[in-house]
């Protein structure tokens, strides 16, 4: 019976072409609006490292002065001082630790036909690569020894390696970076975290990947400026050394624990550490030390923009409106068929049977609307991705969203069809037959 009803449903699409078209288009537009905004929200709030997100932790230690502090005040800072970052690196906490900041470096390409340019990258410690599962195309991360002496070694991203050296293995080659000769030790495979949770500084968290990596110690030795914000609660002295020793926050640290359960252990280490530092005359605020796993970090830093949430809410409001509209149109469509229902009922069809037939007919409308809505959503996303690099990275449909579109459109159609279908079942055969 299902196949037959399905065929009937397809046939009935042609019965009231204007009304049906209106219904399909209304559904499609509603689905397209909600799916395209939801895709962006979905990509924005995407967990970029699901296999580890519950055991990667960011510690935050408030180093600011006491003067402008009221206890329990919500802190706005998302970085820590160089001093605290170094101490966390040395702590032996968890399985791996890293500290990092964003850098920009001028490059003198070995190929003379390319003029010098600037690339954006990261100055982490070597654990970073293993911690965030960065894949390597050639070579590997720098060694412990290189790290310890702050050697001038660099890991390039694959597109950057190809730009500089062409399609060959550049490991071992020299690169003039920031005015110093660096040695290439590795090339990462195409790798981009969306959002870029490991460093929420310097540009959109959805825009670009890293073009190169140099050891934190090397960057500090060459007094490389950080790319991103710095927050100071007191005036600091001139020069880079003063910044390293200052209570200004400009570094992000990460700790990888063996399991999510080690959180309390890390927290108690942080609290002990802060108490020790307090004895040394630092951390006067005595503010709570905070620890975030990746989802908590995204929540705390507000990576997902308010505009994206607003758009999604409005789009769902719009979908609701489209649904109400479809209910009305379906009512209209079914009401003209009262006599047909009367005949079927008189010939022995049960109410359940009628219900099934008309619900399947609505599902057909939902499917057609869904397919059209999906096409419209693709178009809308294409349009949205024209508005900048970050949006182009976000406006991408994945399988999850694709199936969700179908669930939404068919679900919407069924929801819209319930009331009209129920009304159709209420037709009393006698009255319908009499009036013919």
């Amino acid at each position: 019976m299902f196949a037959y009803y399905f065929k009937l449903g397809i046939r009935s699409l042609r019965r009231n072409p204007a009304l049906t078209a209106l219904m399909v288009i209304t559904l499609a537009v509603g689905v397209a609006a909600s799916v395209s905004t939801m895709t962006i929200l979905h990509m924005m709030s995407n967990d970029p490292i699901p296999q580890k997100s519950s055991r990667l932790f960011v510690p935050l230690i408030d180093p600011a002065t006491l003067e402008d502090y009221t206890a329990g005040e919500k802190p706005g800072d998302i970085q820590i001082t160089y001093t605290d970052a170094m101490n966390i690196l040395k702590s032996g906490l968890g399985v791996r630790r890293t500290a990092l900041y964003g850098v920009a470096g001028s490059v003198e390409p070995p190929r003379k036909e390319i003029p010098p340019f600037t690339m954006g990258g990261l100055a982490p410690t070597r654990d970073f690569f293993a911690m965030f599962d960065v894949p390597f195309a050639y070579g590997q991360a720098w060694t412990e020894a290189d790290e310890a002496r702050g050697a001038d070694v660099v890991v390039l991203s694959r597109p950057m390696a190809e730009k500089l050296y062409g399609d060959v293995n550049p490991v071992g080659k020299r690169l003039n970076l920031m005015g110093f000769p660096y040695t290439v030790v590795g090339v990462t495979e195409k790798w981009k975290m969306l959002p870029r949770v490991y460093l929420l500084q310097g540009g959109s968290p959805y825009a670009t990947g890293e073009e190169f990596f140099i050891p934190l110690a090397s960057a500090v030795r060459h007094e490389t400026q950080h790319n991103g914000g710095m927050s100071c609660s007191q005036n600091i002295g001139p020069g880079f050394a003063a910044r390293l020793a200052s209570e200004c926050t400009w570094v992000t640290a990460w700790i990888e624990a063996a399991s999510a359960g080690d959180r309390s252990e890390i927290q108690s280490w942080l609290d002990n550490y802060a108490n020790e530092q307090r004895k040394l005359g630092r951390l006067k605020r005595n503010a709570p030390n905070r620890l975030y796993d990746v989802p908590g970090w995204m929540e705390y830093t507000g990576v997902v923009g308010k505009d994206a949430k607003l758009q999604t809410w409005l789009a769902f409001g719009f979908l609701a409106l489209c649904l109400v509209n479809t209910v009305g149109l379906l009512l209209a469509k079914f009401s003209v068929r009262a006599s047909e229902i009367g005949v079927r009922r008189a010939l022995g069809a049960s109410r359940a049977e009628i219900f099934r037939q008309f619900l399947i007919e609505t599902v057909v409308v939902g499917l057609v609307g869904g397919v059209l809505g999906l096409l419209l959503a693709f178009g809308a996303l294409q349009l949205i991705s024209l508005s900048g690099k970050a949006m182009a990275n976000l406006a991408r449909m994945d399988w999850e969203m694709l199936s969700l579109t179908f669930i939404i459109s068919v679900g919407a159609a069924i929801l819209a069809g319930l009331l009209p279908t129920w009304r159709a079942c209420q037709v009393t055969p006698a009255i319908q037959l009499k009036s013919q």
Partner: protein
Amino acid sequence: MEIRPIFAALMRNKTGPILVALQIALSLAILANALHIVNERRGIMARPSGMADEHAVFRILVRTLGNETPEQQLADIKRQTEVLRAVAGVAAVAQVSQMPMSTSGSNTSLALDPRQAKESALGSIYVSGDSLVKTFGLQIAEGRDFLAPELVDVNEATENVYPPGVIITKPLAEKLWPGASAIGKTMYFGTGPEAQPTRIVGVVENLISAHAEFTERGMFSVIIPQRAYGGGRGTLYAVRAEPGQRDRVMKEAEAALRKSSALPLILDLTTTDDDRSNKYRSTVTVSWMLVTVSLLLLVVTCSGIVGMASLWVTQRRKQIGVRRALGARRIDILRYFITENLMITSAGVFGGVALGLALNQLLVSKLEMSRLPGGYLIAGAVVFWLLGILASYGPAWRAASISPATATRSV
């Protein structure tokens, strides 16, 4: 009027009218809030940057491959400034630490009294050894521009120098000293015992901050008269071209800089127009999306009203025929349907006003939006009343054209 019979007829078959009213309520609520947001965003984008003829201004970021000493950097800055000034069609050049709306720059806390715990305001810091008033084309509201002796060279690598005098924007002056003249007054960089005093020598009408924040902070800028070098991040120049010559001047300035340097330079040229459109790009996207949804909203609601009204006309052909046969004129039938629709629309509009306020309340509490002014709801209500009449006119006219004979024949 025949309101009571129409109402009674509506009450007999409630589903359809309720659906239409619900649709109108939903669209009115969304429409009013969407337009409110769009208008607010437009207001933010329309804020003046304080720069005269923004189209004539661009910035050049100059970086080198090597590591010059701070002294070499200072010599380079002075030489490059002269090279840029010598380019035909350049009206003014200033070495500067940050550019308006470029979304990259620094802020500092400002206080009226070093003993206060909280800062009075956060200011966006423009550090320039040349006249920004001339290069940006700022309008001096009070006081004066910096004098030549006030513009000093500061080596960032070895010294921290706090300027004795600064220029601030009028919105910042109003925030710090409401209703009073700011000239000659003292404010502090930072709070606490290390706060550094400075005097206000001039107030400019406006200068938008580097990050162009959407709050009042976006207009809190401070100009510091220093040529800072030795910071190691490259040198940024703001260049004002003669009106209409920007694109040519940009090309020639780039060529002149490259020619003047023995070492290869990394140059990054961006117009202020581009900075502005980059800064507000996502705002424009959101606005367009909201406008599109609003238009679709109107179309869908309109089609809903037409659809339902047509259905009712078809369902009541017989009744209409009977009424016509009993002496009702066309105008009576027309009026009946339009009145009926107006009643449904009104119910929807009242529901929509309540729903719109509720939605706004939600946006205010969850997304920190501002309150919805009543004007939007009133305008929305008028729009939907007109839309209701327009949409129902077609079906009502068809109803009125039903001849009594055809309508009653099938009985």
